């Protein structure tokens, strides 16, 4: 069972990363289920227990709003990401609910071709395992650095 859990989570995370990197952002909110929470913060804020995020969403509506704002409202230069994910570590398991931690590295590619390491950090996730799949309920993105280059438009 726990081998499978690991596999389910790995698959969900790979799909999640491809979704963003392929610029299918409209599908991104569908990765979240139930009482969803998505937050981007920094490791020092996380360690100090500071509540605010760089991005904070506690409904799927707020996630959709992020995407439509990026498409229709916000001004920024075109850019894309390449997510490189580590293996998920299972932190805890209670019935179908599984907590995991996964390292990520995100490179950002700007329209002039400049590619740089934009963020490294960890995903702290809460998954619900059902129907042989891991569904994401909560994702807290904890960036290692508290410095964000210029702006954070696309989700991490």
């Amino acid at each position: 069972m726990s081998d499978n859990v690991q596999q389910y989570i790995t698959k969900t995370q790979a799909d999640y990363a491809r979704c963003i990197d392929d610029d299918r952002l409209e599908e991104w909110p569908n990765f979240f289920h139930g009482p969803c929470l998505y937050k981007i913060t920094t490791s020092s804020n996380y360690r100090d227990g500071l509540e605010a995020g760089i991005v904070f969403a506690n409904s799927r509506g707020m996630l959709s709003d992020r995407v439509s704002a990026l498409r229709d409202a916000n001004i920024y230069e075109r850019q894309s990401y390449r997510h490189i994910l580590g293996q998920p570590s299972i932190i805890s398991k209670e019935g179908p609910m599984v907590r995991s931690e996964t390292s990520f590295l995100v490179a950002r590619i700007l329209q002039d071709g400049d590619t740089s390491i934009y963020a490294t950090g960890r995903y702290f996730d809460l998954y619900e395992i059902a129907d042989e799949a891991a569904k994401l309920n909560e994702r807290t993105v904890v960036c290692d650095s508290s410095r964000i280059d210029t702006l954070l438009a696309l989700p991490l």
Partner: protein
Amino acid sequence: MNKIVLPPNESSPASWPEGLTRVPYWVFQDQKIYAEEQRRIFQGPNWHYLALEVELAEAGDFLTTQVGDTPVIVTRDSDSEIYAFENRCAHRGALICLEHRGKHRKDFSCVYHAWNYDPQGNLTGVAFKDGVKGKGGMPDSFKMEQHGPRKLRIAILHGLIFGSFSEDVPSIEEYLGEEILTRIERVLGGRTPVVLGRFTQVLPNNWKLYMENVKDSYHASILHLFFTTFELNRLSQKGGIIVDESGGHHVSYSAIDPDAEKDVEYAKQQLRSESEYKLADPTLLQGFDEYHDGVTLQILSVFPTFVLQQIQNAIAVRQIVPRAVDKTDLNWTYLGFADDTPEQRLTRIKQGNLVGPAGYISMEDGCVGGFVQRGIAGASDERAVLEMGGAEAKSSESRVTESSVRGFWKAYRANMGL
């Protein structure tokens, strides 16, 4: 990014145009100007935001920050007073403190040769001062009290700690003036702030381009679709601009005015901001009446690099730190208050989506400065045009004005002798 910028031909006081409506682009590009700013503005007779008093709540608390290029340590000593001194060892100049913040600190010891300082910045110990076995050591003429990092003067205002390297800076009250003081008090007076988060946005532009942006009420409803669509800020709303006597400080504010909603001026201009955009989860913008004066937005700046923000219930202080001619750190500290209910706290955190590096309205301010910095490359001798709302740097009921941007340049030139 690391381009070699050709030195401007005309970066001299003589080439600064008359009046306040033209700004030569070399002022954002010139290495000599950057160095001169460090001397005249950041070391000069101005007050610089250092930290919040609540971040140094107990004796022994300390943190490190910057005043321009200069690293600074801020402490609360056992006498409960706040002190600040340059984070530079009096021996050979190493950083005295490498940590960002911490607690229970009774002294600071330089890692290089262990010279030791008390929390007020006095040199209290020199390793091997008397030599070893009667050999070596400091000469008798060396007096510890004659050596130490430079100390800053401190002023505390509604929980904001300001510091200055200058002996000539007037009191903070005199420096800010009545109107600015009142508007700081409006947001922070008599309340205990709580830090909700800290983030740094690295801006690809000169620090002055960010300060211009903060003072530029003209762009707000054009660049930021969010402001307009959700009636956070329209130039047609009730509001105004306050520019202080020096020009350097400003307040821009607006109040909800339902009559202005369907203002024809906006339709006429055919702006992008007249779109059909709607939020799927409008709770983001459902705030609470915090100040009972109808003002939903108040952006306040203190010369040279401090901003206090109220955007609905998203309260934050912003500290702007120049890093290079074309690089700036924008330090955000999001605030709540000790007496917030859980619902109010959640509202502030949700509205945090409006500001910071990913802010629906602030992410754009993070990149427009870079657009200007890149746009003016190769045009050092050209000038910006600041004629919106006239030629003066005065308070105004209209926010369709560049009055406070001109005010910034008035104060800047007075500081720089330009």
